[in-house]
């Protein structure tokens, strides 16, 4: 299955790209998906505890399962306004 992962702000800079498409053998939790991305981009690891997730444009808990075709976003601490 394929999942698009959007990256923002400091996480985007660490990964060097705005979006990554992951090929996964089976549905995984958001938290596991972060770990897989960290394997490719080790700099992400130190942000693990302060990264929130969005699934299809809505905030989601780390245990939420990601399915084929979903859009995931990694949300570092926000600072709008």
């Amino acid at each position, binding site marked *: 299955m394929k999942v698009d992962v*959007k990256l923002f702000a400091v996480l985007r800079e660490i990964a060097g790209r705005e979006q990554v498409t992951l090929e996964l053998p089976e549905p995984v939790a958001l938290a596991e998906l972060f770990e897989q991305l960290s394997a490719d981009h080790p700099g992400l690891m130190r942000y693990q505890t302060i990264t929130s997730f969005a699934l299809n444009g809505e*905030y989601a808990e780390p245990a939420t399962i990601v399915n084929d075709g979903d859009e995931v976003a990694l949300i*570092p601490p*926000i600072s*709008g*306004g």
Partner: protein
Amino acid sequence: MVEITRQPIDVTALLSGAENPAAGGVCTFIGTVRNHADGRTVMRMEYEGYAEMAVREMERIEKQARERWPVEEMAIVHRLGMLEIGEASVVIVVACAHRSDAFEACRYAIDTLKKTVPIWKKEFDQDGAAWVEGVMPEPNRE
């Protein structure tokens, strides 16, 4: 109405859009780029956002404000891109029959925006640039 824009925010146009004969108080909050932070001189600020989601979260804030206060007109606009000192990054306009409701709804909107809307800012000073330390979002579900 809510909007994410890369253009300068036209506050006068937003105020015109909020005109309503039933309104007796219009409260406007304008967030602007400040020239200092923690003793350092800030030269400009760059805003990045997850635009589609940001719009949805801003729509949620407007809906909740309208449920809690008797709002006649409301606008929430956030700008993205590179902003100079003094430029408006966010503008909120709330028109209500009475001023206390307008103040409260406006305050609610900016406070909630800072806790829920996925936008980030990077501060540029003489030494370089750094992402502003943010807050972990508090999802707005009720």
